[in-house]
Each structure stands twice: as structure tokens, then as C-alpha cells.
């Protein structure tokens, strides 16, 4: 019994680290975008496009890190497209997000076809578990550097939003466009920049999917992770550090299903697979309120009205 529990816990640890990384990057990107007052639902498309671009670039250049950078740029490009359309008056950003999702996924699959067969060089990992004899623990602690990059980005974002002038600008634009205008800020330009950076981060998240875990490119790669990340940001109440924790939670939850099966608990695996979504719903219901708009929610978001 104890061994089984240990196996499940180690698997959850490994899953939390592995599966959370793309969530983290997409959530951080979306967090920044939403802090500036815009919702980008198109990150699912950015994720898939980033994965494809990363794999293709790594294949052609032989360098997986070049793939990561290229993925970021592709993500930024999609983000820029999203932002420029949304900056036109009377355009609904939720709808544009869904459009970008379709477009991004379509373009990724379209150009990605020739890359399903070949094998591209993958990102290496840092073996942190060398101290242990347990091969499961060693594998769980086989961490990709991007995981640490993600945490660093989260810390940077959190600090930057709270303490720098840039952070203040972004937050003002996100909380109240009239106040920002009164300060002489260009609302659209700030949002464009944050959506660009947000897209860049999401692209890197996609690169992780195809170049590290599961480390393969094909048409079924993302199962709604981009959209989940949007829910994750709400779940984390728009704090970059809480985004990291939420990503770890979702990643761990994703690993429960297979882990439980491996120790013999096999009932109802569908519900384990649906657990993250149910969890998010419950949290949303518990923490939202009909009358009070949450203090954490940037005031300019469509969702706040």
C-alpha cells in the first residue's frame, strides 16, 4: 500500500513538472495580456503553431533551442495579429481569439504535414534526480531547463508588474482605459506589446510540447491546453506566481489518471481526465460573486462587464 502511494506521488511529482511547463508559459503569457485588459483565447492556436514551428526549425537547423526561439517569434506574430485586429474599434476580442485559434491550428497542421515523419533533435534535460536510487524518482526529476525558465519568467513578471514603471503602465491600461488615457498612455500600443510578449511565451510553451514532452509533432498534440491555460489564469486570480502553482496543480492532476491505473485503481478514468476542468469550474463558482467584481480582475476585461 505504501509502495503504491509512493508510486502515485512520484508520478504526480513528475507529471506536475513535465505537464505543467507548457501550461505555465501559456498562462503567464495570457496573464500579462489580460493584465493589460485584453483576453486572448487564440493561445490554443499559438500553442500548436509554436509546437510545429519549433519542431520544423529544430529539424532544419539541428538546434532545438533555435526551434524554441523560432516558436516564440511565431507566437509573437500571431499575438500581434490578434492585437492589431482587436485594436480596431468595435471588434470583440473573444471572437477574434476564437478566430485566431482556428487560423493558428489550421496553419500549423497545413504546414506541419511534412514534419510528422522525420525525427527532430529534442531538448535535453537536466538530471536532478541523480541522488536517488529509485528510477521512477530519477525520471520524475529529469527536468527540462524550460521549467526553470518558466519560474524565472513568473518571478520577473510578478516583480515587474508590482514594482516597475512598465508594470504600472500595464496595470493602469488594464484596470481603466480612461485613467491611462488621462496619463497620456497609448492604450492600444501597451496592449499590442503585452499581447506580443504573451504570444511569444505561449509559442515557447508549444515548443516544449513538441521538443520535450511528449516530444513529438503530430496533429493530435494539444488537447485544449491553450484554452485550459486561460481558465488557469482566472483560477490563479491574475497573479503570475499563483499561475505557476496552478500550472503545477493541473499538471499533477493530469498525471493522476495513468498513475492510479498503474497501481491498480482503474475505476472511472474518464472523470480523472476531466478532473482539471471540473476543478476549475468549482473554483470559479466558489470565488466569483454576482455583485462584487473581484478585486484582482483587471477592470477593462470584457469579462468584467
Amino acid at each position, binding site marked *: 500500500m505504501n509502495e503504491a502511494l509512493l*508510486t502515485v506521488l*512520484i*508520478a504526480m511529482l*513528475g*507529471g506536475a513538472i513535465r*505537464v505543467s511547463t507548457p501550461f505555465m508559459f501559456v498562462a503567464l503569457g495570457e496573464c500579462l495580456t489580460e493584465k493589460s485588459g485584453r483576453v486572448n483565447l487564440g493561445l490554443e492556436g499559438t500553442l500548436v503553431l509554436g509546437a510545429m514551428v519549433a519542431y520544423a526549425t529544430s529539424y532544419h537547423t539541428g538546434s532545438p533551442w533555435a526551434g524554441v526561439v523560432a516558436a516564440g517569434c511565431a507566437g509573437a506574430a500571431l499575438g500581434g495579429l490578434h492585437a492589431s485586429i482587436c485594436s480596431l474599434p468595435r471588434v470583440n476580442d473573444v471572437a477574434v481569439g476564437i478566430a485566431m485559434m482556428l487560423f493558428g491550428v489550421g496553419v500549423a497542421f497545413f504546414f506541419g*504535414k511534412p514534419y*510528422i*515523419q522525420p*525525427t527532430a533533435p529534442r531538448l535535453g534535460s537536466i538530471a536532478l534526480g541523480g541522488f536517488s536510487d529509485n*528510477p*521512477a524518482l530519477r*525520471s*520524475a526529476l529529469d527536468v527540462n531547463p524550460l521549467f526553470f525558465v518558466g519560474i524565472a519568467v513568473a518571478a520577473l513578471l510578478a516583480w515587474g508588474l508590482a514594482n516597475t514603471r512598465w508594470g504600472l503602465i500595464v496595470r493602469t491600461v488594464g484596470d481603466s482605459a480612461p485613467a491611462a488615457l488621462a496619463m497620456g498612455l497609448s492604450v492600444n500600443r501597451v496592449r499590442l506589446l503585452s499581447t506580443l510578449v504573451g504570444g511569444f511565451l505561449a509559442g515557447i510553451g508549444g515548443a516544449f*510540447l513538441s521538443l520535450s*514532452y*511528449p*516530444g*513529438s509533432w*503530430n*496533429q*493530435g*498534440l494539444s*488537447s485544449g*491546453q491553450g484554452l485550459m491555460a486561460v481558465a488557469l489564469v482566472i483560477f490563479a486570480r491574475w497573479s503570475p506566481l499563483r499561475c505557476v502553482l496552478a500550472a503545477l496543480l493541473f499538471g499533477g492532476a*493530469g*498525471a493522476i*489518471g*495513468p*498513475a492510479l*491505473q*498503474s*497501481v*491498480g485503481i*482503474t*475505476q*472511472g*478514468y*474518464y472523470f480523472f*481526465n476531466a478532473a482539471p476542468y471540473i476543478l476549475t469550474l468549482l473554483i470559479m463558482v466558489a470565488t466569483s460573486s454576482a455583485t462584487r467584481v473581484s478585486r484582482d480582475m483587471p477592470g477593462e476585461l470584457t469579462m468584467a462587464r
Partner: protein
Amino acid sequence: MTSLPITRRNFMKTTAAGALGASTLLSSVQRALAADLTVGIVYVGARDDFGWNQAHAVAIQALKTVPGVKVVEEENVPETDACSKSMESMINLDGAGLILATSFGYYSPFVVDLAKKYPKVEFRHAAPLWNKDKDPKNAGSYFGYLNQAHYVDGVAAGLSTKTGKIGFVAAKPIASVLSNINSVLLGARSVNPKAIVQVIFTGDWSMPVREAEAANALVDAGCDVITCHVDGPKVVIETAEKRGVMSCGHNASQAPLAPKGFITGAEYKWETIYKGFAADLAAGKPLSNFTSGGYEVDFVQNTKFGAGATPEAQKAAMAAIEGLKAKKPIYVRPLKDNKGKVVIDKTYDNLDPFLDKMDYLLEGVTGSIT
């Protein structure tokens, strides 16, 4: 005001009659002249998924080399009305005389209804579903008993494994998947009586992240050979290779993905069947309605051995293949399921339909169906 001479009803009747007439003409031409035959094939996923669809796509290439045969392909056709329309489109707009429907869910009601509607077009479906009493005569089934190749996988894995645990990543607990799992177990136990198989179900045919998680969980649980039955085994095989364990493939050849750990793989040899269809049609012979078999008719094959297969394992596997070609049965009584109930009470011939209804895991398989 004059009324239009062509009412919609008339237009459709004429078109329908025209289409029927055209296809009648077409198939009689086929039969008489061994001339142009258009074969339409429909895939449920991407042609290059390193798995189920790729196996069909690669095999159909063999047909393209046959003179007088044209092949039209359509991929990513879901198992909804869309497949019915795709097939109809191939008949009406491309003049297809033979339709190959490669995904399980295409048959009922889509292939059956279309076969009734176009009696001069032949429809063949890649699963053993054709019922000679209820279904139209121009429909039929073709199938390879992949579990025989999985049995050979099991034999090779049973001798290659050092921990005695073989991991199996499975999509859904349906009969053909369960038969594959059980066959791996029986193959392994035929050479290594203490071997066990551990199975994890991902819940769907193609879920890369979950497949990777399952593969990792199996390795963590001590399995040192991983195999699978999912639509695209690429992720499972690559994950196994990354963890440094051995692997067995499925559906298509994944050998290039695991240069160090690949043992062998269970592959369909659809081209035997497809070439047979083309030859029959060219000679004007009617196509058989139920074409199925395993090693004894060359409908399945095993991938060439990789670096993970020891010479001993290879020898045993080749011997197993010879045995299967001679129709040596896999399911030999008595066998219990992993809940203790006796489920195989007599020795079944490898093609016995009783085995097509399998809904249990044999004793020696760790895992559960629900």
C-alpha cells in the same frame, strides 16, 4: 408566367438515374476490360500518423503501381455523415468502383446504406463486421488478425525482458485491443512463464500527452518492454526509448524511432489484401465478401528486428511465426481472466469468431477494463 420545365424532383431523378447508369456502365466496363478502375480509400486520421492510417496509406501505394488502377484518397474523415458523403462523392465525382473504408465506425450505418444505394459499386470495410444474412452483397469486410503479430511480439519480449514485466499502453478496452493485450501475454508466457503484462488505458485513440504519461508510469512501475495499441504509437515508442527501455511497435513500422530499444512490431500487411482485390477486379472475378486471416494468408507481418531483440528472442519469434503460419492456435484452454473466471474453455482456432467478442483480460495481465 411560365413554370419552369425542370422541377427539382425531375432534376434529381435525372441526375440519380444518370449516376446509376454511369456507375453501371463503369462496373461492366471494369469487369469486361480489366481497364481503368478507380479505387477510393477513406482514412479517419492523417495519412502519416506513424500508425493505423499510415499502414493503409503505405499499402495502397502498391495498388497505384498496378496498370489501369487509379487511387483517390481522402484523410481526416470523421465517422459521421461526412464519411458517407465523402464516399458518395468519390463514386459520383471520381467514378470510383471500389470503396475501401478503413475506420471501424464507417460501417454501420454509412457503408451499409451506401451499398444499398449503389449496388454496382463494391464496398469493403476494414473490420470483421459483414453479416451475410443482413448486409448487402456488394459490401464486405477485410481484416487482418493483428493479435497474431502481437503474439510474436510477446514471444520476443518475453525473452528480452529482464524484469519480467511488459507494459501496454492501450486506447480503449474494446475487443480487438483486448485480444492484442492477451496475445502479448500468451506469447510472452510461452517462453517465459513468469512474465506479466501491465496495461494502462488512455481513454481515446489519440492523446499524445496521456500516452506519454502512461508510458512513463509503466516504466516507473518496473516494465522494461513497452508496447501499445493506439492510433499513433510514435509518442509511446519515443518515450520508451527516452527512458532507455525496449519497445515493440504497432500498426506501422516505428523501428526508426527507437534505434536502441526496438524489438519488433505488429504490423498489418494490407497490401496483400489490396493487391488481391485489384487482381480479382481486373480478372472480372467477384470480390470475396469476407476476407480475413493472419499469418497463414500473409495478412499480418512483424517489423524487422531491432537492436533490442536478442538472438535468442529472434529465433523464438521466427519459430512462433512459422507456427502461426501453420495455424497453431494461440488461445489454448483452459485460460482464466484476471478476475478468476474461466473464459477459454476449449482451444480456439485463431480465426474463431468467439474471440472477436473478447471482453476480458487474461490472468497475468494487471489492469482493469472499467
